[in-house]
């Protein structure tokens, strides 16, 4: 056969080209700059509030990305994602709380508990309801979310009910720990916890990115495109849906552990409530379903808006002390949040990242067509 010639095929050439630009891709630089900002942030801006928002953005970016894996990449609408998040948060809080004194090993134990419980629960939920119609899965997940919420609210001996659980972290993560200064910033438990969460979030996010770029991720993509075809290729699509559901749920529970570590306090409303679930859903939609990186934008959008929109009121009172109408308007900050959301959906129908990717792809196509024009 003539196919044994040394001439590389276009596929091989493209692969070689991708390998060559591996370290010079613009996306990589955006990621590194973002990472650098998160590392330098607390040292440059020594404001607790800014650090608080950044931490929540990191944690919720992971939660939203893991939800995107289930919603955007697998095409399943689950309302129990917050449940897995809450299971992680409660694992952390209760392990420390019920042992009395915080110890080092509590963190890995809490993580193992979170992974174990949420893994088993996700498998059970999937096997019980994923085989049937999608709407049935959604309803079952809602029932599970409500059930676990009530459990957190009522099982007083274990969870302290609606009062919630306060706990302290061990060693250098403790709020009492402090050890001099570094680059002008005070080294304290908060800062250490911040960097721990940063490292953990980055690892979890990379795990999610690797998952969608793996053979499994490609099968999930094909299932969304044409499930019957995937089955005819020999893929057991049900197994793939279960796998991605479990993976996403486990990641969410680990993010829950981080969230509890940051707050040092959990209660049912803050980590198990349906409003939190809706926030996660909004983050994915704002960022763009099926993009993963959109989750960072979505989480930032919502966390920043929630943290600073209430300040609108103070700002108005300060700028226009005598204009009552303006102050009344500023009081309704939650309304502006709604308007912002509607604007995003109108102008970025595929989410911020999804729409941006479309625009870039269209431009590339136009450029490629223009380049080919003279040859025709």
């Amino acid at each position, binding site marked *: 056969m003539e*196919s044994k010639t040394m001439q590389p*095929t*276009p*596929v*091989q050439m*493209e*692969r070689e080209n*991708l390998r060559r630009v591996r370290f010079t891709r613009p996306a990589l630089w955006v990621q590194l700059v973002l990472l650098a900002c998160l590392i330098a942030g607390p040292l440059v801006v020594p404001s607790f509030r800014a650090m608080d928002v950044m931490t929540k953005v990191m944690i919720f970016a992971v939660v939203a990305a893991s939800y995107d894996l289930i919603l955007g990449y697998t095409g399943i609408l689950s309302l129990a994602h917050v449940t897995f998040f809450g299971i992680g948060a409660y694992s952390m809080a209760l392990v420390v709380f019920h042992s009395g004194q915080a110890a080092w090993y509590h963190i890995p134990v809490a993580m193992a508990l979170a992974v174990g419980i949420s893994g088993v629960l996700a498998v059970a939920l999937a096997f019980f309801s994923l085989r049937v119609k999608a709407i049935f899965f959604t309803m079952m997940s809602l029932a599970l979310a409500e059930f676990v919420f009530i459990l957190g609210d009522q099982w007083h001996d274990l969870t302290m009910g609606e009062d919630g659980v306060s706990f302290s972290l061990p060693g250098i993560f403790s709020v009492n720990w402090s050890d001099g200064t570094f680059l002008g910033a005070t080294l304290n438990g908060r800062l250490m916890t911040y960097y721990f969460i940063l490292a953990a979030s980055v690892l979890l996010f990379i795990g999610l990115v*690797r*998952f969608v*770029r*793996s*053979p*499994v*991720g*490609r*099968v999930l*993509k*094909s299932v969304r*495109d*044409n499930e*019957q*075809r*995937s*089955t*005819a*290729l*020999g*893929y*057991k*699509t049900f*197994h*793939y849906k279960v*796998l991605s559901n479990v*993976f996403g749920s486990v990641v969410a529970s680990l993010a829950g552990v981080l969230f509890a570590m940051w707050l040092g306090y959990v209660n049912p409303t803050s980590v198990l409530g349906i409003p939190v679930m809706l926030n996660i859903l909004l983050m994915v939609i704002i960022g763009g379903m099926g993009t993963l990186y959109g989750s960072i934008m979505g989480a930032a959008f919502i966390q920043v808006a929630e943290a600073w929109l209430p300040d609108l009121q103070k700002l108005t009172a300060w700028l226009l002390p005598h204009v009552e109408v303006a102050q009344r308007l500023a009081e309704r900050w939650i309304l502006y949040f709604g308007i912002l959301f509607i604007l995003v959906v109108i102008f970025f129908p595929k989410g911020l990242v999804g729409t941006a990717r479309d625009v870039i792809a269209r431009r590339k196509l136009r450029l490629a067509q223009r380049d080919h024009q003279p040859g025709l």
Partner: protein
Amino acid sequence: MASQAPVVQTKDLTIRFGGNVAVNAVNLTVESFTLKAIIGPNGAGKTTLFNLLSGQYKPTSGSIMFKGREVTDLGAADRTRLGVGRSFQLTNIFPSLSVLENVRLALQSKARVGMVFWRNYRSYSELEDRAYELLRQVLMEKRWAVEAKTLTHGEQRKLEIAILLALDPELLLLDEPTAGMSLEEVPAILELIQQIKAARNRTIMLVEHKFDMIMTVSDSIAVLKEGRLICDDSPEAVACNSEVLEAYLGGGVKNG
């Protein structure tokens, strides 16, 4: 024993949809490395028979043997793994994936690395290279990078055959591979089928309406009418069978 067993053997294969018996007590045998055409008027149950063989439908009664092994209760995915490859009457590809990815996914399934979630899918470069090679075989290599939905109808059918070949099946079920194709595109498909048959390592079952095409490529022809197998013989014998002619013309008249 097993090597002598026919590739496909059905026994009293029946499927009922409500009161309608779509396939009725069909006993069909297909020998290794032959090409059997299935013909019959519209609604005779040809596609339903394919759906039963590929596992899309479960039969109401009767059994299916594949290479001497009972597969009646296996689903479509399991039968694909055993070596049953099926093309669909309505083109069935992944429309928003690239042409190369369509074939690569089939190879990935065959290579059994689909459950790997820690490695980048592009690190399996041999799958990509093999996919490109298969596209070359069906004369589609120039279109490897485009989305499959932008292909012409004929190209999509060729892509489908490339996907099928990627699965390396022993049994190819081709459901009207030339349906809806423009006349210029038909010879390429016909040649492709001849090529596959000439390699003598696969068994082909073919549903087709183009009678002259069937007469040239088939080793044997089975005729279905109203779900029943009324004749299964060499092309020459089938062409002279009065019942077949009656069924075919009758069906033709009925369907205008």
